[in-house]
């Protein structure tokens, strides 16, 4: 583990009650998307699954916000909740403000006009996410046509332009092909082309590279970055892969058991992590530059929590090497502590983490 400078004087730390607003925005512009106290529950036969639990964050124009967590930490559910795409039985609470207006629980028609036009989504598995019985061009054209009345000729030209933009060669021919005739990387590019068709303000990319080979991953991320410089969209990049986040995002939210664990800039998260879970995640990354003979990869002990029986207090406490198992960590849910401007950790001992004894 890298040695970390103990930053932040405990006395200057403000304890924030959610919902809170991060003190300083990365840019002066108001956030394009604000999520406040978002909770999502699914009733199941075995009990209520709390997929997202009181989550708040902001997305600013033209920034890339990474959301990181293991599977089942509520990342994807969050993105679907924003667009109102959760199944009917989901119980959703909180607020999602797009340009100031709460769109959570808004009328289907209001949401429908936003979807794909102002807020667009890129899904993980492009083969499953593209309709097998329509051509790729047809599907891209559709996402334009449902929002804008364009003549057929212009529509076709726009589709070819989009495919070209995401780096698909021979775009005119490719537009006439079906998804199964595309390679994995090309399908993901086509998905991206589809999502940026209307120059959305927010682009939610849900594990856009997970299903791809490493080399293709890099290409796809590259496309995303290039697109962003052109469209100036805000990107919410949802992934379980810290490496992906490090390369692309400016700010990162680390999620655990449907809650925020830590929020900060990429540098803060990677070099000054203030939550035991973030530290565990970083330590479990294989590092080529610090390879020691016989060194074994660190792993976080224990199982990811059941979202039906979430541990009391801090959800991470059963696996946390720093936890006070007789006190606060078990009894009280940690508040979000802002350690420095824009760097928050949901840990009772966020400020004094480095001084705490570590359980073996």
């Amino acid at each position, binding site marked *: 583990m890298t040695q970390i400078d103990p930053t932040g004087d405990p006395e200057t730390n403000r304890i924030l009650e959610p919902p809170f607003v991060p003190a300083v925005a990365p840019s002066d512009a108001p956030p394009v998307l604000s999520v406040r106290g978002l909770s999502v529950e699914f009733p199941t036969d075995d009990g209520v699954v709390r997929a997202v639990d009181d989550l708040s964050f902001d997305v600013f124009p033209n920034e890339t916000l990474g959301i990181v967590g293991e599977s089942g930490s509520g990342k994807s559910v969050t993105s679907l909740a924003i667009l109102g795409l959760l199944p009917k039985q989901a119980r959703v609470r909180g607020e999602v403000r797009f340009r100031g207006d709460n769109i959570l629980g808004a009328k289907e028609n209001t949401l429908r006009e936003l*979807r794909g036009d102002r807020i667009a989504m890129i899904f993980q598995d492009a083969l499953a996410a593209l309709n097998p019985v329509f051509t790729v061009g047809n599907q891209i054209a559709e*996402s334009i046509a449902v929002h804008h009345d364009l003549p057929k000729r212009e529509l076709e030209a726009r589709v070819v332009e989009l495919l070209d933009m995401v780096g698909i060669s021979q775009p005119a021919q490719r537009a006439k092909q079906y998804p199964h005739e595309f390679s994995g990387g090309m399908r993901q590019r086509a*998905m991206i082309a589809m999502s940026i068709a209307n120059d959305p303000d927010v682009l939610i990319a849900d594990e856009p590279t997970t299903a791809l080979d490493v080399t293709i991953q890099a290409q796809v991320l590259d496309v995303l970055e290039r697109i962003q410089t052109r469209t100036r969209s805000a990107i919410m990049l949802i992934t379980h892969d810290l490496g992906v986040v490090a390369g692309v995002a400016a700010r990162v939210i680390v999620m655990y058991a449907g809650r925020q664990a830590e929020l900060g800039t990429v540098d803060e998260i990677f070099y000054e992590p203030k939550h035991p879970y973030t530290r565990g995640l970083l330590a479990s990354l294989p590092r080529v530059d610090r390879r020691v003979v016989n060194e074994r990869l660190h792993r976080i002990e224990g199982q990811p929590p059941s979202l039906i029986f979430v541990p009391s207090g801090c959800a991470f406490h059963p696996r946390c090497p720093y936890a006070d198992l007789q006190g606060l960590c078990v009894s009280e849910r940690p508040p979000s502590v802002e350690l420095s401007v824009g760097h928050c950790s949901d840990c009772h001992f966020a400020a004094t983490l480095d001084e705490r004894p570590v359980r073996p």
Partner: protein
Amino acid sequence: MRRIVYSVPVLVIASFFVFWGIRTTYDPTAKFRASRDSARIIAAKRKELGLDKTIIAQWWTWFTHFLQGNLGVSDRTNDRVWGMLTHAMWPSLQLMFWGTMFALVIAIAVGVYSAVKQYSIGDYAFTGISYIGIAMPTFLFGLLAISLLVTLPVTKFHLTHPYLYSVGLHSSGKSGFNIDYLRHLVLPVLTLTVQSVAVWSRFQRASMLDVLHADYVRTARAKGVPRRKVIFRHAFRNALIPLVTVVALDSAFLIGGLVITEQIFSISGMGQLFLFSLTGGDAPVLLGWFLVVAVFVIVFNLLADLMYGVLDPRIRIS
């Protein structure tokens, strides 16, 4: 499809057993026993029909003739088998055609409705009805339909002609596609398809539900496609693909239903021909019958394959 082709040799073996079964159960010469000089006539007849040879030799004769395109003549009527079959085929094809169309339309409509409005009152009602439809033997449905939809109105309203007819496909002296034909067609088509509608609509519901939960439907919604369009453009076509297979595999079952339906509604088609030939011990006709039915099912499956290609571009390419 390959399975269908593979089963052709099985069909040949089965044809032998049918031949053996019929020949050893019924004696085609029995009807001559009462006549004067019966011994001589029977002996002559036996020689003529080849009954003096072993059963395998008899079957082999039939089989080689069949390979030359000769289905022989009926033991009962001495008519050419091929002629009898083509004659009987026409009413049956009409029933099959209208039946399949009707069953598909209703099953798809009900299935899609039930899936889109899952757990609604309508869904539960259709589920209940289809359970009864599945549990209802075809002939029983036919009997009930005639009692309740033909006889009951006739007695109750003292009609000279029922609203719906229960005999044949046309009133005597009439033909062609007209109101009279439709009034004859309703009940047999309902009877023939009640089970298929029940099973297929359940299947279509399940397949539609599957598709509605598919990623690409979510993508369509995320693009802002209106719900109606999501259902009918994105989901519907995909949900039809599995149904094609089921319908094709059920075609033999439908022909079984044809036997029952034609008997109940006195329609002189393939089904009645089968019953007459079986109870009359008419081996050549029965064998020809099995053959025509098998060919029909194979053709039906080929059509389904073509349909599959139209619906699913993944099949079309490969």
